């Protein structure tokens, strides 16, 4: 930048600042602007209420008033008009305490593929701990040549990696296999979120500690009151697991593991241990409560499937979805598809309860183990319809129907890994309802 250019910039900016100063410091003028804005707002309300002649479009009140001043410091929040967009606890399996509990992402109110940090679903086993990052320590020990201890400062000095991945609880859809218990897609599918995760590859830190050749499994454990822990195969840890300290560009939220969590792409959320305090290497799995009595899948003949980590391909229509109302005419069907085993290759949509299917359009970007948007334009003629989506991933796996799943698994109690095709019905009045059964 040349001297003359920069001095021009400076003088332009200075005069702008002085002009702004003269407004903000003139109380008379500010009051006048306020009155004008109020009058204009009244006019808009009158028009909207009457739903009458759109002869002239009034100048919005916001054009006629000085906006809110910039506070000296601030963490920006959504508009007050978006206050209804919130995580919600389940309204079906209501717990008598809210420490080992969960809350769900409003998928029908999410735009794009990334879930804002404040809306990422939660599953805690003993509430949310308050951890001072200066005090937090992370250890790698067990079957390593050199046990290591890290501070957060240490970890944040490694070259970081950033990846987009979804995260889904194995219990997502738990209440809606055999009967339509939930009304909205937030309740049926909201144990699902997607974020940009930033941290360090686990392999980097394991290499530094020196993995002994006999190590085949690792225990990851949290610094929460549950000391939640899982056994994880070394192959996956070395393949693509991350030690994560940030999501969507900022440090993790407390409820999502602040200051440090494990992130295991494509696998059930509970193995991505939050508030991570250690990884211990061993040569066998530990068979802890959270991998025997919980997070196991009922199978025929009284059996339970264990270490069912991967989240197989799945999709759901988010609009129109349960609780919405539609009118005959053009409808833009929107939804999400995802697979813990690769990219989404295709999404098909049925508008007649599964008799015929047509291919939906995938919205870019289509990323590995990441939420993918699909859309399909439909002209609804007003006759009752059942709509659903079906995902196919890059391995060729086709999302099954619940009927197909029932042939091979037991559907009873706390069923996990519900990746069945999920239908919504639309009645003649345009009301959209859960039609799983």
């Amino acid at each position: 930048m040349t001297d003359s250019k920069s001095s021009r910039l400076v003088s332009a900016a200075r005069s702008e600042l002085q002009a702004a100063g003269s407004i903000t410091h003139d109380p008379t003028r500010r009051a006048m602007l306020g009155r004008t804005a109020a009058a204009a707002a009244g006019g808009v309300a009158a028009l909207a209420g009457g739903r009458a002649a759109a002869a002239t479009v009034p100048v919005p009140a916001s054009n006629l008033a000085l906006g809110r001043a910039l506070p000296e410091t601030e963490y920006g929040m959504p508009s007050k008009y978006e206050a209804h967009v919130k995580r919600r606890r389940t309204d079906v399996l209501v717990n008598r305490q809210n420490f080992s509990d969960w809350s769900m992402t409003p998928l029908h109110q999410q735009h794009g593929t990334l879930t804002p940090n404040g809306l990422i679903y939660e599953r805690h086993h003993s509430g949310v701990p308050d951890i001072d990052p200066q005090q937090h320590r992370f250890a790698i020990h067990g079957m390593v040549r050199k046990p290591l201890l890290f501070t957060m400062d240490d970890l944040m000095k490694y070259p970081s990696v950033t990846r987009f991945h979804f995260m889904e609880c194995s219990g997502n859809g738990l209440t809606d296999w055999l009967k339509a218990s939930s009304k909205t897609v937030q309740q049926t599918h909201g144990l699902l979120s997607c974020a940009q995760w930033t941290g360090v590859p686990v392999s980097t830190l394991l290499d530094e500690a020196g993995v002994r050749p006999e190590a085949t499994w690792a225990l990851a454990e949290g610094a929460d009151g549950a000391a939640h822990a899982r056994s994880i195969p070394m192959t996956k840890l070395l393949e693509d697991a991350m030690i994560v300290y940030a999501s969507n560009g900022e440090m993790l939220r407390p409820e999502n593991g602040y200051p440090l969590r494990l992130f295991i792409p494509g696998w059930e959320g509970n193995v991505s241990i939050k508030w991570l305090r250690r990884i211990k290497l061993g040569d066998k799995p530990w068979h802890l409560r959270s991998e025997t009595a919980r997070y196991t899948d009922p199978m025929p003949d009284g059996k339970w499937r264990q270490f069912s980590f991967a989240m197989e391909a799945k999709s759901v229509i988010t609009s129109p979805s349960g609780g919405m109302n539609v009118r005959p005419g053009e409808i833009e069907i929107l939804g999400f598809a995802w697979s813990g085993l690769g990219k989404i290759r295709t999404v098909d949509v049925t508008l007649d309860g599964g008799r015929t299917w047509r291919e939906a359009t995938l919205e870019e970007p289509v990323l590995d183990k990441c939420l993918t948007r699909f859309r399909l334009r439909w002209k609804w003629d007003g006759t009752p319809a059942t709509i659903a989506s079906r995902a196919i991933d890059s391995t060729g796996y086709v999302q099954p129907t619940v009927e197909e799943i029932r042939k091979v698994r037991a559907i009873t109690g706390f069923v996990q890994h519900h990746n069945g095709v999920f239908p919504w019905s639309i009645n003649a009045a345009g009301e959209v309802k859960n039609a799983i059964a």
Partner: protein
Amino acid sequence: MQSPKFLWLALAAGFVLAGCAATKSTAGGSPAQARGQAVSEADLLAWNIDVRTPDGLGLPPGSGSVAAGKAVFDAKCASCHGAAAAGGPVFGSMVGGIGSFKTDRRVLTPGSMYPYAPVLFDYVRRAMPMNAPQSLSNDEAYAVTGYVLQLNGLVAADAVMTAASLTAVQMPNRNGFMVDDRPDTAATRCMSQCTPIAGK
């Protein structure tokens, strides 16, 4: 008074823009610097609470009787789990359910579900009581584990739990698990004349 500050801001903005244009210049090539600090297993003793439950590796020294376990349970657990673990104001029953898995209604309790008795010790020690986790002594954890097992008919009323006796308890669901064998469905991409999906 504003001008010097403003000049500084303008210059700073120029630097930021220049930084964007320069892209990633020096990163890459140099290996990650080792940052971990050496630590000994002895230093990590207080953290090292996990039990490998099939063979009890990691169970600490100590012991606790069923009778002592009842006292611990009544004092520290019953307010949530109910007397004799029959279910309380916060959590359901931890007793029974053995034999229920082949019925339509599987009842999950430590007795019916855990394949190895040390699972219960590990969980009690790491997470219970919920309002004061890791507050029980090892003897108390052995004792209360023994009491819950006794309520499920899996150890005698006069049993004393130690690392050895707990690992030796035979749990009814020991062989109840199978390892993930998915994909287990073989759906195909039907586009027309397909079987309608169940539901409304």
